[in-house]
C-alpha cells in the first residue's frame, strides 16, 4: 500500500471531508496552543521580541520534510503525488508582500484570524470579515488582473530541482538552516527584548 491514499481513490470525497475536518481541528488546536490566537504575540515577531511563529513554522517544515523524505525512502509514500502549488513567481511575490503588510497591520494571517475568532477575540472576527471582503473584492476585479495572476508561471518546483542539489543533501541543508535559524531567533529575542526594556527604562 502506498500513500497518498486520496490519490489512489481509496476513500470517497465525502470521507476526505471528515479527514480534512479532523486535521483542521488539530491544526487549529496547535496554533492556539502555540499562542497564535493573540495578535500581540504574532505582531511581536516583526519586532524580533518573540519569534515563536518563526520557530513553530520552521519546526513544522522540518518535521514534515523529514517525515516525507523517510517515508518515501522506505517506499510507503510516493512524494510525487503530494499536491504542490504551482509557482507564479512575480504574482506570488506581490501576493506575499500584500499578505505581509496585512499581517503587520491586522496582527493576524488568515489562518490565525480563524483561531482568534473561534476563541472569541473581536479583532480576530473583524480580521476575518476583512478576509472575506477582500476575497470578494478580488473575485470582482479578477478579470482585470487575470493576465498578471497567471504570469511568470514556472510550474511545480522542488528546491532540489531548482538548486540541482541531491534530495538527501538538501534535507540536511534545510535542517541546518532551521537550527541556525532557531539559534539566531533565540539570540534576537534576548537582545531585542532587553533593548525594549532599556528604552522603556530611559523613558521612565
Amino acid at each position, binding site marked *: 500500500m*502506498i500513500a497518498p491514499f486520496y490519490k489512489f481513490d*481509496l476513500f470517497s470525497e465525502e470521507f476526505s471531508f471528515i479527514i480534512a475536518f479532523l486535521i483542521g481541528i488539530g491544526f487549529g488546536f496547535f496554533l492556539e496552543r502555540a499562542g497564535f490566537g493573540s495578535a500581540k504575540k504574532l505582531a511581536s515577531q516583526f519586532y524580533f521580541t518573540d519569534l515563536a511563529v518563526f520557530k513553530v513554522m520552521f*519546526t513544522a517544515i522540518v518535521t514534515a520534510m523529514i517525515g516525507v523524505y523517510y517515508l518515501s525512502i522506505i517506499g510507503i*509514500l510516493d512524494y510525487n503525488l503530494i499536491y504542490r502549488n504551482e509557482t507564479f513567481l512575480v504574482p506570488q511575490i506581490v501576493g506575499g508582500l500584500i499578505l505581509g503588510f496585512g499581517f503587520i497591520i491586522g496582527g493576524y494571517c488568515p489562518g490565525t484570524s480563524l483561531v482568534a475568532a473561534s476563541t472569541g477575540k473581536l479583532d480576530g472576527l473583524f480580521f476575518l470579515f476583512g478576509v472575506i471582503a477582500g476575497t470578494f473584492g478580488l473575485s470582482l476585479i479578477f478579470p482585470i488582473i487575470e493576465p498578471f495572476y497567471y504570469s511568470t508561471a514556472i510550474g511545480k518546483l522542488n528546491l532540489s530541482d531548482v538548486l540541482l542539489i541531491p534530495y538527501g543533501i538538501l534535507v540536511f541543508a534545510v535542517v541546518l538552516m532551521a537550527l541556525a535559524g532557531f539559534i539566531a531567533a533565540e539570540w534576537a529575542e534576548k537582545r531585542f527584548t532587553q533593548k525594549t526594556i532599556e528604552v522603556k527604562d530611559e523613558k521612565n
Partner: protein
Amino acid sequence: MKKINLSTNNKLALLALILGFVAIFFGNPDSSNKSIVNTEELALNIIDTNNIIHPMQLADWIIQGKVDYRLIDLRNESKYNEYAIPGAENIPLTQIKTSELLRNDKFIIYSDDELRTAQSWLLMKTLGYKNVYILVGGIDNWKESVIFPRLNIENSDSRIIEISKFFGGTPIFGNEHKESNISEFSSKVAPKIQAPSSAGGSKKPKQKREGC
C-alpha cells in the same frame, strides 16, 4: 565525565540534525521510478485477454453515454488534433507518469501503434493503475471497424451502418475499392466528430479536487 542536560527542544533539534545528516547517504527517494508489480496478475491479464476492448464495444459505450471510463489517446498532440475518438483525452506516453490520473479509474488506451500501446499498458500497470484496457488495433482499427466498416451489400448489418453514421463515417460496401477509399477518407475527411453531448468524453468523469 560531565553529564550534559539537554532540554526537550535540544533533544528534538539533535534528532532532526541526525536524521538530516543520515539523509545525505540515502540520496533521492525515487519511488516513482521503481515499483512492485504483481506478475501473476499481469500474466493472467495477458493470457485471458480480458484487458482489451473492441472498437464496436467502445462505440456502443460512447453512444450510450457511459462515463465510467477515461479514454486516453497516447499519440502526440498534432495527431490527436487531427483526429481522435470522441471523448478521448490526449496524454502522450511520456506524460503518463506525471499525469494526475487516479489509480482506480478505468482507462482505455489507444494509439496508432499496437506495440507501443501494449508497452504503455504494462507501464501503467506497473505505475499502479488498476483498470487499464487496450483498444484492439488502436485508432486504425477504430477507423476500419467503426467509421468506415466494410460490409457485404447482401447482408449488411443495419446496426453497424447506424453506428458508423453516428460517428460521421460511411460504410464501405464489398465491391468498392477499399484500400484507396480508407486512406483517402482517413487523410482527407477524417470526420470531425459531432457526437451528441451525451457521448463519453463530454462529461468528465469525477476528478478529485485538491489544493488550499
